[in-house]
């Protein structure tokens, strides 16, 4: 039990702990492991009930190849990138500006506006759904990727502003004040002084927002209809209907959809966790 460090306990306990770790991990990730095993075995295995045993043959490339050959999976993946990357750039960029405004300037609207961003960030999607569809129809951007990008960018600006504002608020205020006394313009202070200092926050936000948007399902179903512009999350759902009972293909497609955020997480782990755990330590 916490907080006894394991090095201080008996060697028996230490061994037990080291043994318990992989076992616990195995059970924790069992659904994922099982689905991976399914994705590399032939359909015949599943038919005869060999779901967990050793695959009768390894079909890693055949199964994943079949997903790409039989479906628009590649198109779906590209679409997701086309949605996620511009939305990420837009929302993080806008949030740098808004976050800076709300953190540095001491005007009486600063706190209410900040709370507006925070509150908007937490509302249920359903209350936004119909008006957003309506706006998109009026602007003639419904069923288009830019239409979805614009919405994502606007919505994620809420979370990004929360993050950015708190990050910039923690910077030493004297820095900005002295620059102002030197006669440096407001935008120049932002561009040359603050922006280089918030690079870690930008990195954390980019990783996080990319993952959020990559995993978005709801807004893509609501705002996109044409098969050629769907992202992978919606695509995989559709495949599930097409490949009835072909679980080796469904699982391969699911893992494909999960791959990029997982890679992103492993490559940028530090930033990712810094972003998620914002506020979990202060106070």
């Amino acid at each position: 039990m916490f907080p006894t460090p394991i090095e201080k306990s008996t060697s028996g306990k230490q061994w037990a702990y080291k043994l318990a770790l992989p076992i616990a991990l195995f059970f924790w990730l069992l659904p994922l492991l099982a689905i991976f095993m399914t994705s590399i075995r032939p359909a015949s295995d599943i038919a005869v009930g060999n779901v967990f045993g050793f695959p009768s043959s390894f079909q890693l490339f055949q199964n994943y190849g079949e997903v790409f050959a039989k479906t628009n999976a590649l198109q779906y993946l590209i679409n997701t990138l086309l949605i996620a990357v511009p939305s990420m750039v837009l929302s993080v960029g806008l949030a740098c500006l808004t976050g800076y405004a709300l953190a540095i300037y001491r005007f009486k609207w600063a706190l209410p506006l900040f709370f507006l961003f925070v509150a908007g960030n937490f509302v249920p999607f359903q209350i936004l759904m119909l008006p957003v569809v309506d706006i998109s129809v009026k602007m003639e951007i419904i069923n288009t990727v830019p239409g979805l990008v614009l919405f994502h960018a606007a919505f994620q600006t809420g979370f990004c502003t929360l993050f950015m504002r708190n990050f910039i608020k923690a910077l030493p205020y004297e820095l900005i004040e002295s620059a102002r006394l030197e006669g440096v313009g407001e935008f120049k202070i932002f561009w040359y002084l603050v922006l280089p200092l918030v690079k870690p926050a930008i990195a954390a936000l980019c990783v996080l927002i990319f993952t959020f948007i990559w995993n978005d399902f709801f807004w893509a179903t609501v705002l996109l209809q044409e098969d050629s512009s769907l992202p992978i999350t919606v695509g995989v759902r559709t495949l599930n209907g097409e490949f009835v009972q072909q679980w080796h293909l469904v699982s391969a497609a699911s893992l494909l959809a999960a791959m990029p955020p997982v890679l992103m997480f492993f490559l940028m782990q530090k930033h990712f966790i810094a972003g998620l755990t914002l506020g979990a330590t202060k106070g």
Partner: protein
Amino acid sequence: MATTEFDSHDRFATSSTQVAIAGIILATCLFILYFVVNTAMVQELLGYTQRMHARVPTFFVRLVVVIIAIGAALYLVTGLSVYKRNKVEWAPWLFLALGLGLFMIYVIIPIFQSMSYSFTKWDGLYDIDGNWTGEWVGLHNYKILLDDPNFYTSLKNNILWLVLYMLAVPIGLFIALFLNQTVRGIRIYKSLFFFPFVISQVVVGLIFTWAYNPEFGLLSEFWSWFFCETKENIMGNLTRVCSVDPPSILGNEHTATYGIIAAGLWPQIAYCMILYLTGLNNVSPDQIEAGQLDGAKGWKMLWYVVLPQLKPATFIAVVVTVIGALRSFDMIATMTQGGPFGSTNVLAYYMYDQAVGEGVGRYGYGSAIATVLFLIMLVYISYFLWRMYQDEKEAK
């Protein structure tokens, strides 16, 4: 003396070149915007009517022009004497303009629009002249809502989600405590435990749909260890014979919701775990030692010494869990689509189903459901904001 006066005068004067350049750009943009909106006219002018795939390109042109126009407008304002005199008062609004504008249009105003839709009967369409086709019905939608058994099922399920989803907080804490050691490779263990959170909820839904499958899922496999044996049938093939058939969790209206919640807990526990792991990193060793000197051990240590220090982490974990529970949609859409017999509906999914799913098109009724969901969420949002406000006051 004279030069300083001149300088100070100059510093605040409108810089006419800047304003002129920005003004010309802005005017051009507005001019283009006006014409590009009339796409047909431009196409006729250029002599081609059908070749252009009109919608997306015009949208992009418009977007680019709008961005340039906003940039020019901001540049224009910064050249004005009145801006220069009140720089510190005006600058925040210039920084806020774009982000706040977009956020207002897409998030804040729609909340009120949805609420107003909930007093109407509308199918989302406009007539040929662009007039709204709905009608005002007052509280009618809310009256129907009170007699709708599906609404009560959804509400009950929402409460179930809220209560059971909260298990993610203690379980996450438990796993965090378990992993909070320093042995070789612990970092990799921590990130692997966090894994489920990174995966899309749709994929988690599919994984668990498969795991619950009574014929060849993960659960049926465990089931067969206890209740089944493999026999050779008359044809000489191996078949599985079970004394009790494996349950179809998602096919049974009494268990389906629990099945989905269990699936949803998997990533949520991972999220809470990472929050607590970060919190534990910052627990002060001095206080732990002091606790040890006072004879605190095990549960007592956890409850009286460690948990109070984890308060910020607990707060965030509770907030994200509540919001996650009330936002549950993806899993239901992938795993059951509200079925069997509407038993797994939650407000979020039921609203979607009524408004756009199945081609129902009940915008007014859907908005009424969304408004109820929003009001429930508003309780938590207000509490969260109130807590943030207290923190801000302390910081000052």
